[in-house]
């Protein structure tokens, strides 16, 4: 059975992300003949001598016209070692929200910089977002190394500056790898390049194929957000009542003592059903239907948790948010908050601080949070929510902020505090538990 690695790419405009992704697809033979024909035709139309591999991934007409990537593109490729789901995310500042989208489930992120420009504001911002989301591992791909004549000291300066930045965001030095590459020429992408004899590390694909993927911890507390109550009321199943959902964390077995939140009702698991038959045990990521001993009033939006380690429902949340909308967030705003399978009204009581990801410091009590800002807020919700800290349970520690007027997603929210500069003295989650689901 081949394993799966979810990864995201990020970087600034013109760093060559799409070319790198095109190169990975091309060199892993994931590009089929007709796709390459189409790209070759389009490249000739544009007056190019060789196929422009970025055309493999820049899917929207306006992207091809402007030569930039606007939206997250999902790519699927495989080698004999591993299957990859790759989220190729945009570099333009106004599309950083899409970087957040692409990275929220990533187990590793590849950040690109142009060897001629080095670490930019956007690089630092992306690294901060990745740290906040708890993406466990970073790769810095120093691209266009051919354009600086494969110069070792240029690479070393960029790698050191980036590694220092990542470490200050909470990454252990061993989880940050810098690789000199040329996406256009193929240096160090799939195979190690003879043009960089001073570089002794792995080629990018080699690293992606072998980097360990942290499995969900087996002993994490059980969490099941109830999505849907299954009540067939058919002749065969007149009294069946099952609670359907995808296990967010931990494992469950028949006989386990559970508590239903926010009500606080206690019960015992009597069965775990699937269409393929009952299970003796089910773990994180599985969609199941849980049966309980008692006839309780449980609805969509409730959380079934292990009785021994259940979260305390609260209507006061302290959270880090990444603001994704053009309109600013101000204290006093009324919003909707979606957590698990529940959407409630919420009131923004206070914007505590904004994280300045350039200077790595907190700006206390800002007036507002603007597009792409990361900040610490206090929220009050209309009903108590059984939320976990994001760092211990990302699936039950994350939420969306939604505009009640038009339904747009305004922010990504993480329960708890994600930055050393934002006050609690703890580093961002880099322990392999974050955002791997």
């Amino acid at each position, binding site marked *: 059975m081949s394993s799966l690695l979810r990864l995201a790419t990020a970087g600034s405009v013109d760093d060559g992300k799409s070319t790198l992704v095109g190169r990975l697809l091309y060199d892993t033979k994931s590009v*089929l003949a007709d796709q390459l024909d189409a790209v070759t035709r389009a490249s000739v139309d544009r007056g190019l001598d060789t196929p422009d591999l970025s055309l493999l991934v820049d899917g*929207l007409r306006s992207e091809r016209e402007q030569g930039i990537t606007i939206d*997250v593109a999902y790519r699927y490729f495989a080698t004999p070692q591993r299957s990859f789901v790759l989220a190729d995310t945009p570099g333009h500042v106004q599309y950083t929200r*899409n970087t957040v989208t692409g990275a929220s489930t990533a187990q590793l992120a590849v950040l690109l910089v142009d060897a001629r420009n080095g670490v930019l504001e956007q690089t630092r911002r992306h690294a901060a977002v990745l740290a906040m989301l708890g993406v466990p591992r970073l790769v810095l791909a120093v691209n266009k190394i051919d354009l600086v004549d494969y110069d070792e000291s240029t690479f070393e300066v960029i790698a050191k500056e980036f590694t220092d930045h990542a470490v200050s965001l909470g990454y252990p030095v061993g989880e*940050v790898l810098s690789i000199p590459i040329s996406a256009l020429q193929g240096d160090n992408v799939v195979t190690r390049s003879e043009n960089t004899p001073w*570089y002794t590390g792995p080629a990018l694909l080699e690293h992606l194929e072998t980097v360990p993927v942290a499995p969900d911890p087996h002993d994490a507390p059980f969490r099941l957000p109830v999505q849907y109550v299954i009540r*067939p009321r058919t002749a065969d199943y007149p009294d069946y009542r099952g609670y*359907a959902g995808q296990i967010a964390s931990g494992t469950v077995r028949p006989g386990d003592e559970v508590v239903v939140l926010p009500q606080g009702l206690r019960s015992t698991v009597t069965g775990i059903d699937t269409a393929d038959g009952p299970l003796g045990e089910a773990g994180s990521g599985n*969609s199941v239907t849980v049966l309980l001993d008692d006839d309780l009033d449980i609805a969509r939006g409730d959380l079934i948790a292990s009785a021994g380690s259940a979260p305390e429902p609260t209507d006061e949340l302290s959270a880090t948010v990444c603001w994704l909308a053009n309109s600013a967030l101000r204290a006093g705003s009324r919003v909707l908050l979606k957590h698990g399978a529940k959407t409630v009204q919420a009131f923004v009581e206070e914007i505590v601080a904004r994280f300045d990801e350039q200077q790595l410091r907190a700006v206390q009590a800002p007036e507002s949070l603007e597009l792409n800002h990361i900040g610490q807020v206090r929220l009050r919700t209309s009903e108590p929510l059984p939320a976990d800290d994001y760092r211990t349970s990302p699936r039950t520690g994350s939420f969306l902020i939604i505009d009640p007027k038009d339904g747009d997603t305004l922010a990504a929210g993480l329960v708890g505090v994600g930055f050393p500069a934002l006050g609690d003295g703890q580093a961002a989650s880099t322990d392999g538990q974050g955002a791997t689901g």
Partner: protein
Amino acid sequence: MTAEHTAEPVAPGSGQDAAIDNLAALESEAIHIFREVAGEFDRPVILFSGGKDSTVLLHLAIKAFWPAPVPFPLLHVDTGHNFDEVIEFRDRVVEKYGLRLVVAKVQDWIDDGRLTERPDGTRNPLQTTPLLDTIGEHGFDAVFGGGRRDEERARAKERIFSLRNAFGQWEPRRQRAELWNLYNGRHRPGEHVRVFPLSNWTEFDVWNYIAREKVELPSIYFAHQRDVYLRDGMWLTEGPWGGPRDGEDVHTRTVRYRTVGDGSCTGAVESTATTIEEVIAEVQASRLTERGATRADDRMSEAAMEDRKREGYF
């Protein structure tokens, strides 16, 4: 080198073995999506053509709500250019699972003048109007489709919950951020959401899943003898959509279909694969994507699919 690299070779028995089986993970993700829609929308519907992707979609819906029946109807936009085997299969599936089927016939729209037949006789692009009219007429607010991101470049950028405006149009620049597994299905009256539970599946995953779950498919997916003629490098079959033109010779070939679409523009591939296992071996060895090999409608321009999606196509 400044940063240490962590690329240690991974020995068997280390943490990687704990990785969840890829197909099981994709199935759980799709079931989660079906249940979210059932929980949040008033009138969902599943687009069902009888093709392999929509058949897998229905299989997943049945599993998501078992032992209760699927709480949504099916919608088939019927071009009139059908393969008999597929319509027979569609009706049998509907009967077997006690489902409700809504059929929107392109012919009805042509008959009353809301649509005009194209000079080339192809009806695939004509499906958009009947689809949007039917969505509006029934008040469907969530529409499940079998689209996958690996199919095509524009699809690669689409969200799993994809908001359509009151004109049924996809606006790529207004897509919502989609984070973790938290899906935002809010929409205003008149808008609807297209939902793609198979977004993260590849063609290969779909076939492997069909084999593993023993999902029944229409017979045209497997090799059979058929009278076909060659047009634009594709083997087309005779039918009510018009037959071979002058100079297009009819041959009897052993073929199968990789997709099910409008008969006028869906080509067969030469194949001897009569079992799922043989089909999988063929897909694995194939040098052409399924759309590129067999769908004339995607060859029209560099942005053919994007343009149709903006208009409200599947």
